[in-house]
């Protein structure tokens, strides 16, 4: 028997990260706490960079960066209306690396909003919200969890930029709580609960603070973990469904079991035999440890590196201290809410409550609207879906431009100067027009293509284009008094004290 080299202490501690055989790799997954989330083996197609772009990993990494930087910032920030603003100034000026922590927190928050949008786009455009064929698979539920995470991310962002209690924060709270008040029947009660009274003050600040540091992060963490657990239960990333189908053709009679059910032998009647794409055709898969591990580590590092570099370059702004007697002109929300602000400028009820409510609900219902089972996990441009997606995008572009033209050139109250009814203006305005046009798009494409998938895809692409265009409008084309300015037109000068 050949003598094996003696195992050092380091070897004994780190063996699970560098297994030396397939068997050791499998053993690593069930012995290591951090690694137990991974399956034993993964398909090469699943871990390909150009399939998922690891956007989910990026989202979660950013959330971790936010939690760590946030926890440290909590030592310095005081949630009192008198002190909040000055505590942030001190973080910027006198806390060692305070400026870096604050900038990192802000940069990773913005990146996380972008990342969750991109992740949602990716999952939609690969049809990964569709149910797979393995027992217990329910990807449509995981999609709903994803929509919940999306909303939680935006709410975390909203509650976060209120904490500095500068002009942006104060007026954003004013506008946000007043949008809540425009909900019919119970709007004023909702506002009373959010504000902690009638007027925005200390109660409001501390409510948003507690939401931001405890309630929302706890919910986000819990749902994230559930979301990731569902990936395992659903049999892995959606692209594995293609392999699963191929493998099923080889042995049609057997019920396809997922790795977790079979490996655990949980319910009676199942066998220990694992019949899964990663085990049937071993050439197309690799052990998670070290292959998936190294890719995840790489993405985490890349995310940290990008955050650090951006934090070193871009300043975190802080406006003047909150002043109830003066509204800044213009008063603009952060970029991800500018599209909403544009719509809210037409009607608070439609733009602020109904449209976002319907959009979020519709997003959640996508897996139930589109029931077609083909092309699960395949990028949309590899299928006939591409042309409908392009059609939807162009339609969205034209619809948004039309709505904007109406809003800028023909304000509702000057078109109908004699009408006093507010309900009329709530129902007849560019925001409603846009809404109606996009809803019409779904039915148009459904009629033309007889496919719920293509109709949903066209509508989704229209939604993406609308969002981008409305955000751009809010950013670059709206100036003081929310007047329309072309990008080359100078804004009127802003008066200052001296």
């Amino acid at each position: 028997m050949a003598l094996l080299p003696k195992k050092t202490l380091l070897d004994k501690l780190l063996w699970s990260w560098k297994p030396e055989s397939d068997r050791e790799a499998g053993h690593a997954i069930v012995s290591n706490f951090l690694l137990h989330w991974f399956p034993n083996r993964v398909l090469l197609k699943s871990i390909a960079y150009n399939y998922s772009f690891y956007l989910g990993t990026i989202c979660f990494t950013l959330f971790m960066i936010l939690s760590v930087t946030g926890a440290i910032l909590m030592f310095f920030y005081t949630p009192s209306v008198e002190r909040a603003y000055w505590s942030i100034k001190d973080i910027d000026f006198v806390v060692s690396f305070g400026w870096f922590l604050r900038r990192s927190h802000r940069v990773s928050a913005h990146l996380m909003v972008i990342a969750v949008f991109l992740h949602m786009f990716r999952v939609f455009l690969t049809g990964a919200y569709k149910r797979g064929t393995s027992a217990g698979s329910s990807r449509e539920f995981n999609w709903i969890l994803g929509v919940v995470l999306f909303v939680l991310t935006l709410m975390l962002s909203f509650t976060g930029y209120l904490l500095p209690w500068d002009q942006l924060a104060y007026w954003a709270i004013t506008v946000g709580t007043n949008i809540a008040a425009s909900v019919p029947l119970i709007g004023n009660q909702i506002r009373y609960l959010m504000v902690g009274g009638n007027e925005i003050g200390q109660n409001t600040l501390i409510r948003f603070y507690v939401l931001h540091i405890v309630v929302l992060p706890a919910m986000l963490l819990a749902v994230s973990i559930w979301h990731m657990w569902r990936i395992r239960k659903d049999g892995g990333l959606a692209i594995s469904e293609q392999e699963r189908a191929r493998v099923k053709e080889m042995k049609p009679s057997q019920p396809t079991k997922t790795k977790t059910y079979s490996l655990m032998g949980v319910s009676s009647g199942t066998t220990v035999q694992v019949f899964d794409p990663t085990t049937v055709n071993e050439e197309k898969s690799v052990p998670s440890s070290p292959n998936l591990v190294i890719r995840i580590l790489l993405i985490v590092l890349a995310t940290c590196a990008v955050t650090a570099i951006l934090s070193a370059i871009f300043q975190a702004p802080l406006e003047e201290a909150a002043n109830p007697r003066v509204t800044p002109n213009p008063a603009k929300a952060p970029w991800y809410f500018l599209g909403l602000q544009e719509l809210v400028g037409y009607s608070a009820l439609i733009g602020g409550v109904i449209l976002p409510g319907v959009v979020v609900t519709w997003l959640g219902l996508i897996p139930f609207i589109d029931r077609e089972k083909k092309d699960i996990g395949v990028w949309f441009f590899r299928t006939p879906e591409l042309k409908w997606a392009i059609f939807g995008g162009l339609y969205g572009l034209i619809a948004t431009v039309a709505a904007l033209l109406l809003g800028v050139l023909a304000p509702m109250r000057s078109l109908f100067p004699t009408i006093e009814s507010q309900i009329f203006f709530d129902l007849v305005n560019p925001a409603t027009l846009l809404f109606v046009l996009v809803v019409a798009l779904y039915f148009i494409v459904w009629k033309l293509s007889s496919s719920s998938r293509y109709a949903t895809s066209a509508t989704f692409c229209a939604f993406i284009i609308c969002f981008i265009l409305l955000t751009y409008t809010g950013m670059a084309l709206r100036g003081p008094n929310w007047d329309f300015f072309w990008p080359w037109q100078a804004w009127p000068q802003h008066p200052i004290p001296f």
Partner: protein
Amino acid sequence: MSKKDEQVNKPRRSFLGMMTGGVLGVGALSTLWISVRSLVPNILYEPPRKFKIGLPETYQDGVSFIDEQRIYIMRDGNTFHAISGICTHLGCTLKFSPFSDEKEITVRNMSYASKGEFICPCHGSKFRDEGTNFAGPAPRPLLWFAVEIAPEDGQLTVDMAQEVDRDFRLVV
């Protein structure tokens, strides 16, 4: 157990089950109600809705802004009224923009000489100086508040808890 026993025990078991469920439900609902109700404030640290703003003599003809409560006091000779300076759309503070010359405005079948208009910087809403919204997304006209003279020291007193209609005038 005999079949007869089973049949007797079934209703009892389900009754006990229901009772337990009921009691647990009461406990759960109580916890939920406590958690939610505690968050609804009973006492507010806010400035009073009724407050004094000084003697009538200290107010000039025209428009004055009370910044803490964000209301505009309008004076015309010996006549006063108070208008809210908060935009009814989403709560931004309005700016009063006077006209260079008085304009004849017809509003609600009534003509009067308008001295200016209120403009909101957030989305461009505009209001006549008597409060009617005529441009932008503002859904409602501006609120008017009751103004009276305090009997003890003669100061003007505004009561924001009391809304009045736009025919209200306090004559001093």
